[in-house]
């Protein structure tokens, strides 16, 4: 066995613990062998992944933010594959090469086997560089316009570059989502229809507990908090339908809280929005005026909700009306 042959050659180079990013030490032929196996395997698997699997990674490229998430995911996988291959190759190599055998050499102990300053510092340096690169890369991808599709609270700072942004309010409630279109008279519907190629601002809020608006194929996710406006941006590129699911446990029917949305062309959207606005005009009159958040009606269990600029503890039931002095 080659272990026996090299028994005496342990010195400063012994202990190269890492097949991943580690340049091999001088006289450690185990190190060279591991490095070669690692390099070959990584050089094969990484391009194979990127070419064949990369384009099909969910959630696809239906919108700007979904495409960004997929790109990030693929970069992380491409970086993760060599690390995992490195550790696994090393473990497999150790299991095969350094298993105990009758009459085999005793491992050498002593300070050289217990510590190797070069190996330790290079490990720490390499992982630190890798980690700082990942943090920088993630930050760069996040602070792009639209903020990667995540919920950005009430005052988003990473906003779309486009001047025309369509606001859509998403209201989470046990156990469904409803959508209000403030630019079309504030009608409220259970259908989510968005136009292609237009930047969209989802204003996500909740009437009761915490929900989470997850438009899966659009790559948008934002918590729906009571009394909070949580904004997330995206720009849909492809026509078709997408799934909306609640992604934060909100009670017993959490699993049934989903519906389908649709991306349509701008013209179709205009038609749909104006038709729906007219059809729902009678309902819209009964709704509280559009606001970014709503407070449950404290006067009674009639299911009423008030915009936040109205005193919910008024002695008078003023459903849908603006109170004097409420501004």
């Amino acid at each position, binding site marked *: 066995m080659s272990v026996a042959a*090299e028994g005496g050659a342990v010195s400063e180079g*012994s*202990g190269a*613990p*890492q097949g991943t990013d580690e340049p091999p030490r001088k006289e450690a032929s*185990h190190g060279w062998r591991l490095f070669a196996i690692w390099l070959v395997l990584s050089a094969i698997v990484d391009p194979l992944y990127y070419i064949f699997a990369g384009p099909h990674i*969910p959630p696809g490229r239906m919108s700007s*933010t979904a495409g*960004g998430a997929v790109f*990030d*995911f693929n970069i*992380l996988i491409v970086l993760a594959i060599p*690390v*995992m291959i490195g*550790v696994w190759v*090393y*473990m497999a190599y*150790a*299991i095969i090469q*350094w*298993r*105990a055998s009758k*009459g085999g050499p*005793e*491992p*050498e*102990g*002593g300070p050289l*086997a*217990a*510590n*190797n300053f070069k190996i330790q510092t290079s490990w*720490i340096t390499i*992982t630190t560089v890798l980690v700082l690169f*990942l*943090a920088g890369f*993630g930050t760069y991808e*996040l*602070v792009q316009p639209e903020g*990667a*599709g*995540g919920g*950005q609270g009430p005052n988003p700072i990473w906003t779309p570059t486009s001047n025309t942004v369509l606001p859509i309010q998403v209201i989470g409630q046990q156990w469904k989502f409803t959508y209000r279109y403030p630019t079309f008279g504030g009608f409220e519907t259970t259908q989510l229809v968005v136009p292609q190629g237009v930047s969209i601002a989802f204003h996500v809020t909740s009437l009761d*507990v*915490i929900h*989470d608006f*997850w438009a899966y194929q659009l*790559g948008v*996710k934002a918590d729906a*908090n009571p*009394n909070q406006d949580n904004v997330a941006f995206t720009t849909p590129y492809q026509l078709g339908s997408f799934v909306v699911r*609640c*992604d*934060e*446990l*909100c*009670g*017993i029917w*959490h*699993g049934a809280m989903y519906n389908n949305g649709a991306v349509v062309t701008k013209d179709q959207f205009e038609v749909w929005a104006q038709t729906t606005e007219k059809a729902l005009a009678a309902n819209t009159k009964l709704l509280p005026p559009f606001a970014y958040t709503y407070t449950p009606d404290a006067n009674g269990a009639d299911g009423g909700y008030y915009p936040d600029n109205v005193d919910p503890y008024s002695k008078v039931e003023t459903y849908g009306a603006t109170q004097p002095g409420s501004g």
Partner: protein
Amino acid sequence: MAIDITETPGTDFPGETPIHQPAMRRGSEWLRPHMGWAVVGAVVGYLLGHWFGNIIYGQNTVPQNTGQNNVAIVLGLAFGVAGWLAGIGALTYPLAKLVGREPPPPVPETGWMRYFRYTEDHKVVGMQYLIGVLTFLFTGGLLAMAIRTQLLSPTTHVFGPDTYIAIVGEHGTIMMMMATSAVVGPLGNWLTPLMIGSRRMAFPRLESFSFWIFSAGYLVILSALAFGGFPTGWTGYAPLQTQASGGMDSYLVGFAVIGIGMIAAGFNLACTIINYRAPGMTWSRVPIFVWAVLATCALLTLATPSLLAAGYFGILDRTAQTAFFVTEHGGSSFLWQNLFWFFGHPEVYIMALPGFGLVMEMLPVFTRKPLFAYRVAAAGMIGVALLSFFVWQHHLFQSGINPDMRPLFMLTTELISIPTGFLFLVTLGTLWKAKIRFDAPMLFILGMMFNFLIGGITGVFLSDVPVDVTVHGSFFVMAHFHYTIMGGLIFALFGGLYFYLPKMTGKTMNRKLSIWHFWTFFIFFNLTFFPLFLVGLLGQPRRVFEYAPNLQTLNDISSVSAFLLGASFLIFIVNFVWSQWINPTKSPDNPWNSLGLEWQTPTPVPWYNFERIPVVNSDPYHYGEPGALPVADLGREPLVTAGVVSKEEAVQPGELESPDDTDDFDPRPPIL
């Protein structure tokens, strides 16, 4: 070459006679406090508290329309826990001191009844914790299989949504409570004094208290099922928590109770490690597992109070109608999320660090090499413990809390992977040119490294905000933390059990069954949880009872594997019962030829641990060094001269035979 310390004060040699003579017992053995009285105390306490709660709050409207009185439930549970503690005898000592009387002296016991008592022997508490943790684990495991049964079909239901969500919450909470003590409870308590050369814990009564309140927590969290369960999962998010029915009280009281136990255990272990190290046990000689326990103690004592505060606020919101978490009354639902995760993320490392320590502790024994980069390992665990307080908001990336701080929390989260990665530097470095023996513990070590690598790398994906937009709250997260906690901590726990049970019970575990257990556990663990990464990536949120039909195949693979994973634990149970009771084989004092101080004691370990306080010479990892000093001077040689022990007992460690010269050495590769 023993140093004569016979005359050193404080190191008196007790010989066969215990330091404390057994007190004169009056009355029956059964009348003294034991677990039976604890059950009686719990029942009486619950009824009393419930009655009292109904008296002081019976006239008020209960907001949840369930007919339950939250005040009565909370007071019942709190009085029940107090009754449990009174019944076990936890209050005897403090109450006696309080009224100025001398409490009864501790009685060192040897019979089986000591496992059902409030004892001051850390080894008994360790065994109690072991049974307690396994009870938690198997209860949670059965609930997990119930979840996987429901998810066999996307639309056909075995349970209604309310039962299902109760099962999900119960599974998550029980498992999280279990995992906080999984290694620190049984092995941390059992091993720490032995590893540092101490005869006792710093606060033995506090240690026993931590176990008995931990076991009370189990009963409290199970009682949630009697009150209709709780719908929030283990995270207990607030507006949902406020509107939930009575089971939520069990969750809040249960977590508070467990939290008190965690703080108690943390203080006791930290004080023991800092103050009770034997002479010569310098910080650079402390076993790496003890470093892991110490780092964990820092988290147990500093992070858990945040959970207690959150639980207290939640109880007040539900009973006294305060508004800590009610937004329309001036509270904030974000407050619970912040408080909970400020505890919750360090808690993740409360679970991970002891597993790291255990793996690094066992590895040199099976590679016959010194632990590589000991200082980096210790520094890494302290680094993880420190950094873990600065990452909690990565659980809230999409929540709208501090959205502009996300780059910072992304950075801190990714920074924590540097000290976490030291685990691999140390383990891989120790494997280099080693002589690996594939006994069951070693297989679990390798399995843990394999799983934790996947768990750790997927953690980097979750810390990247753009990727997190897709995977947050999905089955991807769920698979990730099962890979770190179950694949890391539980693998380390079972490796540690196969390693230390011969010392703890004096009986050898069956090798073949252990290896069967490993392979079934390892294969079905991966088959259960790996598909769930894909399921999550394909858009299935956590905690749902219905999912998209195209995900059924992956879910079914996971479900079937989960049942087989559950069955693999049966192998452990069979092995345990067979090896410990049905066909016990006496274990030698040091079956693995370890240099560790804990292995230099006789088996079974006497209640006073060491005849003499050992004088420590070196760290316990000097494998492969022919002339190395023994790890400690156990002070037996003068006793041989004095005729107190025989020559055979006085053999010093460090002169161990090479393992392949012994008869029982089995060089088989890791195949059955």
